[in-house]
């Protein structure tokens, strides 16, 4: 079985730095109001949107795995 595609895409994903989770970002609207607003959703028409989604999901799961491994190390 040719796994070169899988290897290549995994290597490419590993090279991408951590993308910020925009749903967690907050911003205030106006000078006086201190209401926290969720950040605008990224443009879904971007040709890279599916790739960004895939990278974010993979990084999210990787983060959970790393936390699990660290927790296991600490005992």
């Amino acid at each position: 079985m040719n796994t070169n595609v899988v290897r290549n895409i995994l290597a490419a994903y590993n090279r991408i730095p951590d993308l910020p989770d925009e749903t967690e970002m907050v911003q205030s609207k106006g000078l006086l109001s201190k209401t926290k607003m969720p950040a605008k959703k990224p443009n879904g028409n971007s040709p890279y949107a599916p790739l960004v989604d895939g990278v974010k999901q993979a990084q999210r799961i990787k983060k959970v795995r790393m936390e699990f491994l660290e927790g296991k190390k600490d005992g």
Partner: protein
Amino acid sequence: MDDFSFNRPIPGESLTAELGSRPWQSPPQFSTVDDALAYYLPRMGQKNFAKGLVDVMETGVPLTNLANVIMLSGVMEGKHSVDVGILTIPAIIETMQLIGDSAGVKYTTGLEEPEEEVSSSKIKRVLSKQIEEENGNAVQEETVPMISEEELEPEEKPMGLMSRRDTNV
């Protein structure tokens, strides 16, 4: 002709089915990466799947191959397209790694560099090449005659006006 089997698909057999009757010929059920992962991840979290996955991991099957098979089966079932499937592969592999780590199983991701085995024929080739080179150098040294200093022609002295004078005189 010893092991020839007639029990194979006839060339073009795949084109005999009505167009659109196969799941992968119709529009995919999930068109985004998030939707496709929302289909996969809960299924991978089920106990039966995790148990079977751990068993397969213990046999040493690389996770890249497993993820590829899972993704292609999703394409065959018409769940998503190939390009969406390829983008989901890293997340699927991460999930499988998480399952493996939580079960305490050693697994191969498929990204490890294979250990290069030096074959005996390669060793022979290198050795014979080295011996040939050494022999060639020895023959060359033998064939090159030694030239005495007397046989060498005397250097021509510069005769111009601006030439440097002989300092020994």
